[in-house]
């Protein structure tokens, strides 16, 4: 018995040593893990994060929203429609294949077949190979956001994905449900190679030995991602030291993390605007601009940021945040209860009216709480709100059906550009072009005209003026109720240098992460 105890003890000691002797391992706890390994099967935050770990784009965003060369070393405009990218030489894929122009073209062509990316690639004409390390990307019309879109051009290993798999299916098939090679296998040029994946349980990656970016300070050799859904558990995992990095951090736990001297909290302002849309077609009262103004004036969004978001959001009065070309400094939050009451009276609704309101309860940070607070605030100007909140799985169908007078929606611009917000949220709904897909009832031809013109305006100053005018019109029309731009929040151990690798898109570049 004694012998056995000794054996057990020495085994435990040996185990604990071997764990600490391994090089830099990063354990990350996120609220969800990527749904697959195919970077082109779903356009979602989780999949784009993975794409930055396992693949590389032509260019990527920096923290101050400029472009950083990745697989493209430089680029130049050839004519109004064409951008020429000069590609990096000596880049290897995880499979050992060499990266060249054909992979860029192949990935581009495949992306166009993906239901999720098709829409974003609509302005593009195609990708043309000039020589082994040069490609031309052409658009149908002059397009100001060509470089912004190039952040989506992740290179997949064309040789690796060519051929048929064990089931006789082509390896490059894009499939949502079912078996496909690309869903479970990946070969990119990125800093990490996937070594083990069990969906919803763990994703393990190791640093790619032949990674081209030898200048990267990143020193993480093993990267283990565990999805931890429950907020309290995720925070506990960090505080107990079981993981090194978590995101998102729920606002109610900010103080807890601040007060612990082994961990730190890092936040960065993001670009996701949270809004309520007022449906003029469902409720005639909302047709009156005075009523909409009254609602916007009645909502104390500054208070919501302070009380509900615990200061981890930026109060908004327009769609795009500071740093976007359409941002207009003069547009300020408008909370003014007396003015709101006066406007209601002027519009002939001194006694108020009733509206229905819907919001998701697991989509945005504190979404249901924001909706409840708003309902109360509207009560103060006599608007009786019947609020219903529900999980996102049900909410989006209700939103598609425009099932309530006032509905919540948050939006992050795909292109980090102001136009994208209006295209989806504020342009008149048009089933054919797809514009206004998430617009519940606001329609102003002037806005449509300006947004469309801005798409092909390549004079950046003119373009900025147009987009700022759009924000001004929406502000004057009280087209929507602006709340705030959500911050991204990260909790990490003190020795993890979080700040340099985060950005407004919430794509932490773990390849460049330094652990001291």
């Amino acid at each position, binding site marked *: 018995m004694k012998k056995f105890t000794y054996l057990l003890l020495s085994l435990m000691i040996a185990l604990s040593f071997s764990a600490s002797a391994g090089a830099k391992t990063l354990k990350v706890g996120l609220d969800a893990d990527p749904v697959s390994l195919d970077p082109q099967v779903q356009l979602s935050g989780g999949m784009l994060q993975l794409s930055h770990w396992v693949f590389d784009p032509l260019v990527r965003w920096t923290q101050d929203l400029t472009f950083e060369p990745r697989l493209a070393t430089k680029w130049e405009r050839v004519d109004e429609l064409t951008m020429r990218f000069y590609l990096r030489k000596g880049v290897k894929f995880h499979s050992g294949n060499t990266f060249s122009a054909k992979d860029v073209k192949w990935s581009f062509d495949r992306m166009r077949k993906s239901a999720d990316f098709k829409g974003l690639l609509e302005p593009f004409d195609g990708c043309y190979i000039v020589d082994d390390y040069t490609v031309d990307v052409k658009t149908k019309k002059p397009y100001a956001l060509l470089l912004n879109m190039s952040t989506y051009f992740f290179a997949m290993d064309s040789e690796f994905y060519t051929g048929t798999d064990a089931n006789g299916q082509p390896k490059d098939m894009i499939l949502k449900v079912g078996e496909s090679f690309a869903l479970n296998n990946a070969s990119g040029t990125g800093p990490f190679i996937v070594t083990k994946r069990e969906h919803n349980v763990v994703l393990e990656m190791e640093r790619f030995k032949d990674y081209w970016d030898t200048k990267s300070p990143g020193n993480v050799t093993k990267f283990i991602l565990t999805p931890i859904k429950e907020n309290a558990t995720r925070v506990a995992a960090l505080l*107990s030291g079981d993981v090194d990095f978590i995101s998102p951090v729920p606002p109610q736990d900010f103080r807890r993390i601040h007060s612990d001297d082994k961990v730190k909290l890092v936040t960065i302002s993001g670009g996701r605007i949270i809004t309520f849309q007022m449906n003029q077609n469902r409720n005639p009262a909302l047709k009156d601009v005075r009523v909409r103004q009254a609602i916007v004036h009645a909502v104390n969004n500054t208070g919501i940021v302070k009380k509900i978001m615990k200061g981890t959001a930026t109060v908004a009065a327009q769609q795009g945040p500071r740093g976007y070309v359409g941002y207009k400094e003069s547009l300020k939050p408008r909370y003014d209860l007396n003015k709101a009451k006066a406007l209601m009276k002027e519009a002939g609704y001194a006694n108020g009216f009733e509206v229905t309101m819907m919001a998701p309860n697991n989509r945005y940070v504190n979404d249901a709480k924001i909706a409840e607070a708003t309902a109360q605030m509207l009560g103060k100007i006599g608007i009786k709100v019947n609020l219903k909140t529900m999980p996102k799985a049900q909410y989006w*169908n209700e939103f598609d059906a425009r099932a309530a007078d006032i509905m919540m929606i948050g939006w992050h611009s795909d292109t980090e550009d102001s136009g994208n917000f209006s295209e989806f949220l504020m342009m008149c709904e048009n089933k054919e072009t797809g514009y206004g897909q998430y617009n519940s009832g606001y329609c102003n031809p002037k806005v449509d005209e300006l947004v469309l013109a801005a798409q092909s305006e390549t004079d950046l100053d003119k373009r900025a003026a147009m987009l700022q005018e759009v924000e001004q019109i929406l502000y004057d029309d009280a087209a929507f109720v602006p709340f705030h731009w959500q911050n991204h929040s990260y909790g990490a151990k003190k020795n993890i240098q979080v700040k340099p690798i985060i950005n407004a898109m919430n794509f932490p570049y773990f390849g460049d992460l330094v652990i001291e």
Partner: protein
Amino acid sequence: MLAFIVRRIIQAVVVMMVISLVGFSIKDQIGDPVRDLVGERVTPAERAEIAEKMGLNDPFFTQYFRFVKNAVTKGDLGRSFLYNKPNLEVIIHHAPATIELVFGTALIIIFISLPLGVYCALRPRTLLSRFTMSFSTLGVSMPVYLTAILLIFLFAIHWQVLPSYGRGETIDLFGLGWWSTGMLTVDGIRHLILPCVSLSTLMLPLFIRLIRSEMMEVLETEYIKYAWAKGLSPARVWMVHAFKNTLLPVITVFGVQVGIMFAFTLLTELVFQWPGMGFMFLEAVHRADISLLIAYLVVVASLFVFVNTVVDILYGFINPTVRITGTK
């Protein structure tokens, strides 16, 4: 006898049909799985196309009969949208984690409730007994969720002696490929402690009280008095004569409660990020994975129906009156 067996089996089939039908009829209430598969930018037309390809637009009975046909002829319960694997495989893959959690909890309950229950029965007036009884009231009235968070706070954050989430290191049992066990590694067992303890707080008080009252009752019976009169040693009276008879009803209740415990793992698994069936079920609800939900319902129902049918048939063998009442 044969008629009886056939009748029982037909009943079982009917029950299964009804359950699967109920499962199918609620599926549209849970949400739209296509929404979860695509990004928010995908147009309604594209989504409709995906739904069409997945067969979600077919009439209710077409979908239902397709499901039944595949289930009966191929044993195929469909494919999970979320995990992108056959449903049956997903369920089987998640089962070991839950079974180990329940097993660990059962061990804790047995090894704590037996000595404590017996002690409380034998020495009802001591301090320890009074403490145990009042503490057990607290245990019953605390929600598992809260107990779990409290345990994490104390053992994982404050003292940092036990891990806070997950199963830790698991190894493949018998090389089966699907039963990964955490019970054979030090790390795995450390990860089991907190979830098992928090789950056991629910049933532990019940068993302590049950054993205590059963034991007290037995101690009052005539044969125990006779044993005392015979001059047997206390140890022999308590352990051999009284304790044995206490166990009978306890074992019966234990069997039932273990079944119920499987249902209670839901919250524990959520808090501890425990990749078992309860966690899988919650994920499926959140992500509107209706295919997996229906399959799960059918699997659980068929387990119950199977066990009940077998028990019924065995009863028929043992006690002929059951058969007779069955035939009017």
